[in-house]
């Protein structure tokens, strides 16, 4: 099941050990990333152009992935959609998990008022209905991609916070934490170097899931008027706008769903199968 990369075999002490699933999922992610980067150069048609007078057209020589509900080229729309789905989701998930996890660990380590205050504040934040929140954001700061990213991130911070705090609280009771504390270590070190390595796997799992949620929520927020503007559309929005094609099994709705699934499954499998660093611990 495990594969040693050529590099690892020659330089036995260094490098990373990959496993097959890890490689496969990285490949899928890389392929999509590449598609996202190259999209503007390789799309056969502009995303807004109508080239098919029919709608929900099938796969054909000219339309490799069929046409959408307006008769636009799906291939182009999906390739361009990759840019937004990957870019925005990645940015949002990084921000939300980073902030949530840092705050969660800080709360666990500090305890007391900081913990209570942060916890209640974030409880309150996540109690505010998301539609109200979204509308408020549009009304207050208008709509742009950065605003979209921050909004998505803010929506998911409380979850990341709760989970990491729960994990960190258990670690915080261990003796090695006491050792580090009486060394005089600051909170930053405690959370970054002592706690994080012990909870990183569940945290990454959480991140993987949050990524899925964000990919899906993205389209919901676009419909609230936040962020992406037509004719651009992320994959979730592609599914949504073409959902009418479902009874006909139109590629316009199937393909973006598959795209989402392939990306999110790969991200999660990669997280489960991250390459391991090879340490030299021979006697």
């Amino acid at each position, binding site marked *: 099941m495990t594969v040693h990369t050529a590099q690892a075999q020659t330089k036995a002490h260094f490098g990373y050990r990959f496993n097959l699933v890890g490689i496969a999922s990285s490949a899928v992610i890389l392929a999509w990333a590449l598609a996202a980067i190259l999209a503007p150069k390789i799309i056969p048609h502009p995303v807004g152009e109508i080239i098919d007078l029919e709608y929900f057209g099938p796969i054909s020589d000219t339309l490799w992935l069929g046409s959408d509900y307006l008769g636009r080229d799906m291939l182009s729309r999906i390739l361009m959609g990759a840019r937004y789905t990957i870019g925005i989701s990645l940015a949002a998930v990084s921000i939300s998990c980073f902030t949530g996890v840092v705050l969660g660990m800080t709360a666990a380590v500090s305890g007391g008022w900081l913990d209570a205050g942060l916890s209640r504040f974030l409880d309150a934040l996540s*109690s505010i209905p998301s539609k109200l929140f979204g509308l*408020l954001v549009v009304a207050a700061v208008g709509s742009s991609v950065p605003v979209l990213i921050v909004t998505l991130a803010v929506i998911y911070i409380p979850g990341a916070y709760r*989970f990491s705090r729960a994990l960190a609280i258990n670690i915080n009771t261990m003796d090695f934490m006491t050792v580090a504390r009486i060394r005089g270590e600051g909170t930053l070190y405690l959370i970054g170097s002592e706690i994080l390595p012990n909870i990183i796997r569940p945290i990454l799992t959480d991140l993987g*899931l949050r990524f899925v949620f964000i990919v899906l929520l993205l389209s919901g927020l676009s419909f609230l008027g936040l962020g992406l503007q037509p004719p651009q559309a992320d994959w979730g929005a592609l599914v949504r706008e073409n959902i009418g094609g*479902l009874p006909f099994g139109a590629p316009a709705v199937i393909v973006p769903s598959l795209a989402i699934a392939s990306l999110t499954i790969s991200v999660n499998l990669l997280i489960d199968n991250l390459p391991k660093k090879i340490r030299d611990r021979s006697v």
Partner: protein
Amino acid sequence: MNIRVLDLILSRLFVAMITLLIVSFAVFFATNLLPGDTASILLGQAATPEAAEGLRRAMHLDEPAVLRFIHWLLDFLRGDFGTSYANSMPVVALIGDRFVNTMKLAGITALLAVPISLTLGITSAVLRGSLYDRVVTVLLIGIISVPEFMVATCAVLFFAVYLKWLPALSFANDAHSFADMLKIYSMPVITLTFGVSAQIIRMTRAAVIETLDTTYVEMALLKGASRGRMVLKHALPNALGPIANAVALSLSYLIGGVIIVETIFNYPGIAKLMVDAVSTRDLPLIQTCAMIFCLGYLLLTTAADIVAILSNPRIR
């Protein structure tokens, strides 16, 4: 230690009150910040300045916002949830049935989703790296990566339109027998279960795997404990904190976040009510819904926190 928990619950209740107050305040002002007021939104295309002005006066919307908030709050404390701006019905009457419906749906989903997800999460942790584990992961992510509205639509197409086994709509009030219940709830519940279980399964798996690597689980092995015992008696109790939080977060979604399921199955719950209320800036309704969501959320997270504390004697 029970005193500690009691203490915690009491202090949490107190803090919850304050949180509720803050949330109601935040929601009130958020609503006020939104452009467009109730009167002009209700009038829609017909909103001439005079007409809107008249309606505003009729609904006492011309009072200063703070005053209205205080009025609302005082009434609320007295148990009077106010009257809906949009249709002048008492908020309680509007929410009553729908709240029950939401709780029914949430309850049934939780009863189904939580045990299944915990089982799947734990078993895939135990068999980590195995084919089973991989299949669960792939299926799970595969399922949740399909947008909820698509899952629901597929289900309707398949079970209602083609097979005609189940109704496409789920009017909660129409359930008179157990068979009705089954018919009405199966699709919404399954759709929701898909969404809700993912987080529980994945987080349970991750948290349990973390504790499976510890020396005390190794020791249990050396005592001859079965895999099941190792996991259930030794690994799981030490992972309860994070798991409880994952469960709480997932379930809190069921209280206010099931708008898509409510829309597609035309299930009358409070998520849709809230969205409507926001659209019409129907403050009393928004406030009351927000209080319900907030209370639900706080209850769930407090329960999770208590579980976490009880499960770790060092922080008791």
